[in-house]
């Protein structure tokens, strides 16, 4: 089959043109934008200027894209330390929108947009949907939360600008979600993968099938390839992984095209680097490390070398879809998601993959970490589904042992698997809470 450069049956969307720029032209565009954004941040953000001066650098030192590696990093705590507006590069008169993300600890982080920033955001979301094969005539159920979270409004304006019909249903109220999915002839849905799983389950209980639904755009939390296969098989849709973060713009930083072999980054606006998280050194394409992003066109809140904590790799090969913008491998884990249990690095996504590999259908789980007599214990609570439930104790104990063996095999440590009743684990309407760490690490110090 030949590759079409227009993903959408309705034709190529003009907003997607930058996805296909020749690499040299793209690099020229990136350098020009990088030089302006560094100059802007240097002139207007004291924290950035101070760090540049400490290194004896000025914006004139950025002569090539490689020079970016000389600039200081920005980290999440910088946003907290300068709460609420300390990293803004535009006066409030030019800021037309604020969003905030609820940090798990302490103050939230606040992000700002000028009118031009919102136009960029909308354009990358149009390109996102176009890459998923959506176009005018599609009906998008936007179940991302509307409000301070960037997901809802980001997808909303992108969908409208694409020319699709957007249903601003926001998150939650599963009964209404299912009614709208059926009655409004929805063809695409945006939500977190864990919430989609919940919708699929409830639909099955209610005897509802998603006849018109074809595409799911899922993000805001890491999810495994096994989870994708499960969602695609049970919902009968094509599931796309979307990537974004509020600090950079919100959703619309990267998206899987219809080939779904990595996520294209809209690198004409967000320049990617992969670094060694320990040393901070830039790694070559193909190497795994932490993703660092620089916003090339943001006005209100430029981010220079922002450390995302997401672990991935830039894929060196061009994508068969024809897009020239580079791809990152799907993000299975974040460096700060990592748990250290008895000295072993454990990522929740590994546990998910192990669970889904056994019997195929145990997607609801939670990790509970405790410490007894100085030894870490990991319990994996797994919800029993009708598919795996048997009336004999022997079969259920066998299932439990197979799950424990699979986790041991994948992660390399013994975990205690506990089977729990359906819907006993908290259901997220936003991001799933997969880990309950009850170890009192500081407890023994005094």
């Amino acid at each position: 089959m030949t590759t079409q450069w227009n993903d959408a049956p309705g034709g190529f969307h003009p907003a997607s043109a930058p996805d296909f720029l020749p690499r040299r032209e793209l690099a020229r565009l990136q350098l020009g934008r990088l030089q302006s954004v560094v100059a802007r941040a240097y002139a207007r953000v004291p924290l950035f200027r101070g760090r540049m001066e400490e290194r004896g650098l000025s914006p004139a030192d950025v002569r090539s894209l490689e020079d970016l590696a000389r600039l200081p990093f920005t980290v999440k705590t910088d946003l907290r330390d300068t709460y609420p507006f300390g990293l803004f590069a535009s006066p409030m008169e030019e800021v037309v929108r604020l969003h905030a993300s609820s940090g798990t600890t302490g103050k939230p982080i606040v992000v700002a947009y000028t009118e031009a920033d919102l136009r960029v955001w909308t354009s990358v979301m149009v390109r996102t949907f176009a890459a998923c094969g959506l176009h005018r005539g599609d009906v998008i159920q936007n179940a991302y939360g509307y409000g301070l979270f960037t997901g809802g409004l980001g997808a909303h304006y992108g969908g409208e600008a694409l020319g699709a019909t957007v249903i601003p249903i926001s998150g939650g109220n599963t009964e209404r979600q299912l009614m709208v999915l059926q009655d409004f002839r929805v063809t695409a849905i945006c939500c977190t993968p864990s919430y989609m799983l919940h919708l699929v389950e409830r639909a099955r209980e209610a005897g509802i099938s998603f006849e018109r639904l074809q595409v799911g755009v899922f993000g805001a939390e890491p999810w495994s390839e096994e989870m994708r296969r499960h969602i695609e098989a049970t919902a009968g849709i094509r599931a796309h992984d979307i990537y974004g973060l509020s600090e950079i713009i919100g959703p619309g930083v990267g998206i899987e095209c219809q080939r779904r072999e990595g996520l294209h980054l809209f690198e004409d606006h967000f320049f990617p680097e992969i670094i060694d998280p320990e040393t901070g050194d830039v790694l070559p394409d193909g190497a795994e490390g932490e993703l660092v992003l620089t916003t090339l066109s943001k006005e209100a809140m430029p981010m220079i070398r922002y450390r995302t904590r997401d672990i991935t790799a830039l894929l060196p090969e061009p994508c068969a879809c024809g897009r020239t913008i580079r791809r990152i491998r799907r993000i299975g884990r974040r460096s700060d998601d990592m748990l250290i249990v008895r000295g072993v690095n454990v990522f929740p996504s590994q546990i998910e993959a192990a669970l889904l590999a056994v019997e195929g259908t145990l997607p609801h789980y939670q990790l509970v970490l405790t410490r007894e007599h100085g030894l870490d214990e990991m319990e994996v609570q797994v919800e029993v589904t009708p598919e795996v439930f048997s009336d004999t104790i022997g079969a259920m104990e066998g299932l439990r042992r197979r799950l424990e063996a699979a986790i041991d095999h994948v992660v390399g440590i013994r975990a205690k698997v506990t089977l729990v009743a359906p819907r006993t684990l908290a259901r997220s309407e936003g991001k799933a809470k997969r880990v309950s760490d009850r170890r009192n690490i500081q407890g023994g110090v005094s």
Partner: protein
Amino acid sequence: MKIRQLSLFLENRPGQLRFPCKVLGDAGIDILTMSLADTAQFGILRLVVKEWQRAREVLEAAGVVVNVTEVLAVDVPDRPGGLAGVLEAFEKAGVGVEYMYAFASRERGRHATLLFRLEDPDRAAKLLEAAGVKLVPSDELFARSGA
């Protein structure tokens, strides 16, 4: 010959047994007999009701995981050695028992009725009948319990 049995997954914590019983009670469904198998971690409640499809629907709607299996009802003479005699017939027929429990029959004194979960119920039913074991059909079973 076969009786439909519902099995329910229960966690080992207070209230877990009451909940499905209340769901069935609210739906006006009478539990004819039941047995609870438990491990340190979880339990499996097995029960027999007349309207098993409706029971399954209301339980699933309440979020309970339900599994339907087939069991055989066997009349056992109510005298010393009665059960041993029946089990001897099982053994000779080569039928393995997964588990068994009693059915609350109103014909006390003559015989007891036991429910058996056997490995291959269809094959077991043929072998047991050939061996002279009396299997109780579901309508007769329900009639005896007044359901």
